[in-house]
C-alpha cells in the first residue's frame, strides 16, 4: 500500500497561504450564509457540477432499468414465439391480445429500447454524468464555465425524459418505426399507429434532448479550453478530459443535423410538405406528396447517427485509459498516440455515415467512398486497443471492480470492433445489413463495451461522488455475471445474423430460410433475461453504499489526477483553499527513483529529485 505523499499541504493552498474563509465544508456545523442554500437550489436546481452529475447518473440508471425491461419483454417473444403471454396482461394490458404480444407493440418495444439505451442511457447517462463530474475536478476549476447553463442542461434532459416516458403509455402506443425512425413509416400514422401521437412525443422529447446536449457540450468545451488551472497545458490533461472534450465537439457539430432532420419530419407530418415523401398510396388513398426522398432523411439522420456512436464510446475509452493506468500502476502507454487516435476517430467519424446506407438505393459510387473511409477508421481504433494491452504489460495489476470492468471493456471492444470491419465492406454488407449480425455488432460495442465503461466509471469515482466505497465483493459478482452474460447473449447472435435472420422481426416462423435457430434464440433470451437480473446486484450495491458504504479516504485508488486532491466530499468550489497548480503529466506511476509508486500531478519537480528524468531536472527550478 502506498504511503501518503506530503501533498496534502499542497491541496490546502501551499505553505504560507493565509487561511481562506471557506475552509470547512460541513453542512451541519457551519452557518455561513453562502452555504445555507434552500434545498430547492442545493439539490434540485443545483448549479454545482457534481450535483448535476449525480442527477444525470440517477436518471440514466432509471432509464437503463426501463430499457432493460423492454428488452426482456421482446426477448420473451423471440425466444418463445409460440408461447401464451397472458400472464403479462396485468402489466401490458391491451398489448396482449389472445395471449399474443401485439406485433405493432413489439416494434414499439424495440424502438423505445433503442432510443432509450442510445440516447438516454449511453449519451446523457454517460457523458452527462462523467463530463460534468470530472471536467472541473480534473482540469482544476471551481465549477463549469456556466453553472446556470449546466443546470438547464440537466432540466431539459429531465423534461425530455418525462415526455418520452409518458409516450410509453399512449393508447396508440409509443413510436414504433425503429430507433432510426425512417420516414415514410415514421411520418404516416396510417402506416403504423405508433407514428401518431407516439412519434410526435418522440420528436418533441428529442428536441429537448438535443437542447440539453448542446447546452452541456458548449459548457464542457468552454471549461476545458478556458478554465484549466496553472500548469495544466493541453498535453498534461488526463485522457478522460481529452475524450470528453472531443465528444462534446462531436455533439455540438452533429446534433443540430438530427434536429434539422426532426424538424423537416415535423413539417412532413403536420404541414403537408414533401421533404421525405413521394408517390405514396396508403390506406386506400394516394397522398399528395411529390418529389421528396426518404434517402435524404437517412443522410441527415446518420450524419448525427454515426458520430453519435463515437459520442457514446469515446468517454468510455477515456475513462478506461485512466482506470487501466491507475490500477496497473503504469503510465498509459502511448499518451500522445492515444490523443492522436481520439482526434483521428473524431475527424473520421464525420465522413463515414453512409456506411449505414450501402443498400438503400443511393448511388453506388457513394458506397465506394464511404467503404474506403470506414475501413480507415478501424486503424486508430486498433491503435487504442494495442496501447491498452501495452499498458497492462509488465504492470502490477490490482483488480478493483472498476479495473475488472475496464478490462472487460477492452475485450468487448475488440469483439465488437472487429465485426465492424465486415460491415464496413459494402460488398459483405449486402448480405449482412439489417440482420442480427449488425445487432450483435452494435450490442457488443455499445450495449456491452460502453456500458462496461459506464460501470467502470461509477465504481472508480463513486468514492469521490458519495464519500463512500461501493462493496468490492458485490462488484466482483456483478462483473463476472455481466461479463459472462453479455458474451453468452451476443456471441451466438452472430450466427443468427450470418444465417440472414432479419432484425425487427416479430417472429421468423413464417420462413423456412429462418427456421434453424429456434433453440439458439431461446438460449439467447434466457441469457439476456438473466444478465438483466444480474444488474440488480449493482443497483443494490449502489444505493446501499450511498448510505451505508465504508467511508472513503481522500485518494483511495492512489491516483495521480487532480480530483483526488480535493477533500473526501468536495464541496462548492471543489478545493477549500487555492486550486492546486499542475507540474507534471497524469501518469507518473511506478516512476523509477521514486519511493512511492505514484506522484500526483500537483507535486512539483523540485520535490522529487530522485525520480526526475533529465529534462525534468531543468524544470524543477
Amino acid at each position, binding site marked *: 500500500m502506498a504511503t501518503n505523499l506530503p501533498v496534502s499541504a499542497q491541496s490546502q493552498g501551499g505553505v504560507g497561504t493565509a487561511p481562506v474563509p471557506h475552509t470547512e465544508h460541513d453542512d451541519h456545523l457551519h452557518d455561513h450564509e453562502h452555504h445555507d442554500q434552500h434545498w430547492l437550489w442545493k439539490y434540485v436546481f443545483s448549479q454545482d457540477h457534481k450535483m448535476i452529475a449525480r442527477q444525470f447518473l440517477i436518471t440514466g440508471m432509471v432509464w437503463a432499468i426501463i430499457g432493460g425491461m423492454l428488452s426482456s419483454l421482446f426477448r420473451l417473444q423471440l425466444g418463445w414465439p409460440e408461447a401464451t403471454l397472458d400472464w403479462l396482461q396485468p402489466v401490458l394490458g391491451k398489448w396482449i391480445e389472445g395471449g399474443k404480444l401485439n406485433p405493432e407493440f413489439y416494434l414499439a418495444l424495440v424502438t423505445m429500447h433503442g432510443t432509450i439505451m442510445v440516447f438516454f442511457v449511453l449519451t446523457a447517462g454517460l457523458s452527462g454524468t462523467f463530463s460534468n463530474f470530472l471536467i472541473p475536478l480534473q482540469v482544476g476549476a471551481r465549477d463549469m464555465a456556466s453553472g446556470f447553463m449546466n443546470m438547464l442542461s440537466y432540466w431539459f434532459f429531465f423534461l425530455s425524459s418525462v415526455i418520452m416516458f409518458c409516450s410509453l403509455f399512449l393508447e396508440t402506443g409509443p413510436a414504433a418505426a425503429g430507433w432510426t425512425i425512417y420516414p415514410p413509416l415514421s411520418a404516416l400514422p396510417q402506416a403504423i399507429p405508433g407514428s401518431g401521437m407516439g412519434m410526435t412525443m418522440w420528436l418533441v422529447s428529442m428536441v429537448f434532448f438535443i437542447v440539453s446536449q448542446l447546452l452541456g457540450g458548449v459548457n464542457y468545451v468552454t471549461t476545458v479550453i478556458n478554465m484549466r488551472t496553472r500548469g495544466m497545458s493541453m498535453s498534461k490533461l488526463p485522457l478522460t478530459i481529452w475524450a470528453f472534450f472531443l465528444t462534446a465537439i462531436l455533439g455540438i457539430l452533429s446534433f443540430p443535423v438530427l434536429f434539422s432532420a426532426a424538424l423537416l419530419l415535423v413539417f412532413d407530418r403536420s404541414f403537408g410538405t414533401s421533404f421525405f415523401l413521394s408517390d405514396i*398510396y396508403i390506406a386506400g388513398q394516394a397522398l399528395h406528396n411529390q418529389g421528396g426522398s426518404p434517402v435524404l432523411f437517412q443522410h441527415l439522420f446518420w450524419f448525427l447517427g454515426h458520430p453519435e456512436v463515437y459520442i457514446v464510446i469515446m468517454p468510455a475509452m477515456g475513462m478506461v485509459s485512466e482506470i487501466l493506468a491507475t490500477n496497473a500502476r503504469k503510465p498509459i502507454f502511448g499518451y500522445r498516440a492515444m490523443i492522436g487516435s481520439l482526434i483521428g476517430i473524431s475527424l473520421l467519424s464525420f465522413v463515414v455515415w453512409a456506411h449505414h446506407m450501402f443498400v438503400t438505393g443511393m448511388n453506388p459510387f457513394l458506397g465506394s467512398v464511404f467503404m474506403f473511409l470506414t475501413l480507415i477508421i478501424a486503424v486508430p481504433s486498433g491503435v487504442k486497443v494495442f496501447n491498452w494491452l501495452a499498458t497492462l504489460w509488465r504492470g502490477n495489476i490490482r483488480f478493483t471492480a472498476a479495473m475488472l470492468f475496464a478490462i472487460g471493456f477492452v475485450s468487448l471492444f475488440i469483439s465488437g470492433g472487429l465485426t465492424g470491419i465486415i460491415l464496413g465492406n459494402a460488398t459483405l454488407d449486402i448480405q449482412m445489413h439489417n440482420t442480427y449480425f449488425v445487432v450483435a455488432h452494435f450490442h457488443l460495442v455499445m450495449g456491452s463495451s460502453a456500458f462496461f465503461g459506464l460501470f467502470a466509471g461509477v465504481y472508480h469515482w463513486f468514492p469521490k461522488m458519495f464519500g463512500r466505497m461501493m462493496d468490492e465483493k458485490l462488484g466482483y459478482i456483478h462483473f463476472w455475471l455481466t461479463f459472462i452474460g453479455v458474451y453468452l447473449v451476443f456471441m451466438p447472435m452472430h450466427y443468427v445474423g450470418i444465417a440472414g435472420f432479419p432484425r425487427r422481426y416479430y417472429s421468423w416462423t413464417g420462413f423456412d430460410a429462418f427456421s434453424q435457430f429456434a433453440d439458439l434464440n431461446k438460449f439467447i433470451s434466457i441469457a439476456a433475461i438473466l444478465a438483466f437480473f444480474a444488474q440488480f446486484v449493482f443497483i443494490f450495491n449502489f444505493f446501499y453504499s450511498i448510505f451505508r458504504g465504508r467511508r472513503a479516504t481522500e485518494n483511495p485508488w492512489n491516483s495521480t489526477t487532480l480530483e483526488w486532491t480535493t477533500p473526501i466530499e468536495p464541496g462548492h468550489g471543489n478545493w477549500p483553499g487555492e486550486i492546486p497548480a499542475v507540474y507534471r503529466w497524469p501518469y507518473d506511476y511506478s516512476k523509477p527513483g521514486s519511493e512511492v509508486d505514484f506522484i500526483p500531478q500537483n507535486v512539483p519537480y523540485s520535490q522529487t529529485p530522485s525520480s526526475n528524468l533529465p529534462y525534468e531536472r531543468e524544470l524543477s527550478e
Partner: protein
Amino acid sequence: MTSLTILLVLVLLLVVFGLLFRLQILTAIFSGSYVRQIGTSNRINAVLMLVFMVVGGAAFFWSFAENFSKMNPPIASIHGHAMEKMFWTTMTVIGIAFVITQALLFVYSYKYQYKEGRRAYFFSHNNKIEVIWTIIPAIVMAALIFAGWKAWTRITGPAPKNAVVVEVMGKQFNWLVRYPGRDMKLGVVNYRLIDASNEFGFDLSDKAAMDDFTASEVHVPKGHPVLIKIRSRDVLHAVYMPHFRVQMYAVPGMPTRFWFTPTTTTDEMRAKLGNPKFNYELACNQICGKGHFAMKLNIVVDEPDDYVAWFAAQNPISKNEDLMASFKQMSKQTGLGKGNSQDAKASAIEEAGEMPATPLAAQSSM
C-alpha cells in the same frame, strides 16, 4: 392470490439476502479482514481471467463449429459465391486478430497481477512500435478495401445486356410482381392510378404496358442474369434474398435495382438439400409496420426451357377486364393515363440503359 404469494416470497428472499450481506460485512470487520488489502480476491480474479479465456474460448469455438452448417444459407448466385469467399477470408483475418488480442489481454491480466514487492515497469511510449502497429493494420485494411471495392463496382454496376427483367413492388404487407412481357419494356406506372383492382397503378394508355403480366411468384432462368427492378408503394421495404446474396431497399418515389445470376434451379437445390419442400424465399428487410415479418415471396429458379414455357403461359394485363375497367375509371378521375407524354418520358428515362438489347433466345420465337 398466487401472484401475491410469489411477490411476498421474492420480497422475503431479498430481505434474507440483504441480511446475509450485512452479516458478511460485519463479520469481516470484526475479523479484521475488511480493511482493503490486496490479497486473495485479487488472486482469484486473476485466475478467473485465465479461466474465462480458456473456458470461454473453448465454448466459443465449440459453438461456432456446432452451428457452422446451420449458419450458412446455401448459395445460389454467381456473385454470391464470390461474396462468401470474401466473407470467410475477412472473418479469418479478424479471427486471427481476435485470438491474438484477447489472448494477450487475459494472459497479461493474469501474468501481471499484483505481487507484493514488485514494481510495474515505467514505460510511457515507444514511437517505433506505434508506427508498426499503425502501418500493418492500415495495409491489411487497404487490401480488404480494394477487394471489396472491386466486387462492389461489379455487383452494383450495369446489368448485362441480356438480363431478364422482373419488377417487384413492396407494399404493406406483401410483394407484387410484374414482368415486361414480349416487348421487354415495363409499362408506365403511376401511384395515382392505384385502386383495388389496379394494385400496381398500371397506366394502360402506354403501349408498353399492354403485354406486361403479373405473377404470384418470381420465376427466373438458371444461368441467365436477372435484373430485379424494385419499387415501393407506401413505406420503405427491402428486397432480401439470402440464398442469392441480394439486398436492396424498396423506396417509394425512387425505383431501385439489383442484378444477379442464379446458378441452381429450385429442383436442383431441393435434391441437394434433400428437402422436397425447399423454396428460395424473398423476405422484407426494412421495418415497414405490423406485417414486416410476414412478407414472403417465393422465387423459382427454372431451367431456361421451363422458364420460357412458363413465360409464354402468362396472361398479359391487357386481358384483365377488371383491371381495364378500373384503369378507365381512375384515368377519368385523375386526368392521368391519357398517353400522357410526361409520364411516359419519365418512365423511359428510368428504364434507359437497363433493358435487354437481345432477348432470351427462345422468347423471340413466341
